């Protein structure tokens, strides 16, 4: 501590140690919080087509189209250790070839400070609902679930599923007209 430089070095190092300690305290204060919330999902229009999947095998696969309603209030999820939420909507179903199929249909980033009370009506999906075969037509048990990743300042990156999902079925006939 006998020169200006050693003193400056010492206080800088100590400040960094303290900031690491404070960040850990911030993590500890939020680690046991339950980040689940309720969401209400509903499908409006559901059709299924049988078209060639040029991105994969060029064979005709089932392609689902749907529009959905989504209502949820995510504002209680935000605290001083949450920077943003990454929401994603998955469809889960069972086919003869696969026990579990999961397709992400839609996603959204909610920053802290954004309106976290979501109320969407008749939304289109962002991503194609391809099946890797012909498992969608007449499928009676397709479940939509909303989940989210919590992006924190420090700590874990939890993936949480909402309470409340919606189960719907695809029609038994292919749609041939334009959707």
């Amino acid at each position: 501590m006998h020169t200006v430089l050693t003193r400056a070095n010492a206080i800088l190092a100590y400040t960094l140690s303290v900031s690491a300690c404070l960040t850990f305290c911030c993590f500890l204060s939020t680690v046991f919080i339950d980040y689940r919330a309720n969401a209400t999902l509903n499908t409006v229009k559901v059709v299924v087509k049988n078209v060639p999947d040029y991105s994969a095998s060029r064979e005709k696969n089932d392609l689902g189209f749907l529009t959905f309603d989504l209502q949820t209030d995510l504002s209680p999820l935000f605290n001083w250790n949450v920077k943003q939420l990454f929401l994603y909507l998955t469809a889960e179903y069972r086919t003869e070839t696969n026990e579990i199929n999961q397709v992400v249909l839609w996603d959204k980033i909610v920053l802290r400070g954004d309106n976290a009370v979501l109320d969407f009506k008749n939304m289109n999906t962002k991503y194609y609902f391809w099946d890797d075969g012909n498992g969608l037509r007449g499928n009676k048990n397709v479940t939509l679930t909303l989940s989210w990743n919590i992006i924190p300042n420090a700590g874990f990156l939890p993936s949480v599923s909402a309470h409340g999902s919606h189960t719907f079925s695809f029609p038994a006939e292919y749609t041939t007209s334009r959707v």
Partner: protein
Amino acid sequence: MNACLQALRSVPTHMDYDGQARAEKLSRVIITLFGVVGLIWGYVIQQFSQTIYILGAGFVMAAIITVPPWPMYRRKPLDWQKPQTEAPAKTKKKK
């Protein structure tokens, strides 16, 4: 020019041992205090960035108060003994 340099050199820039110890202790106290206050304030308003800004203010304050060798860190100079006049005579004899 020379006079200027000499005037500059005559400005004391050292801290005595007691001053160094006090500077270190003071910087630790200031930074810890700002850190604790920042943590409480950040928790109250739920903004972790405010915690870091307050800690940064503590760093700046500690840098201003304890990094430059202020005169208050020079109050207990060491008591050096008077130079002994016999010593040089002895070395001369050996030669």
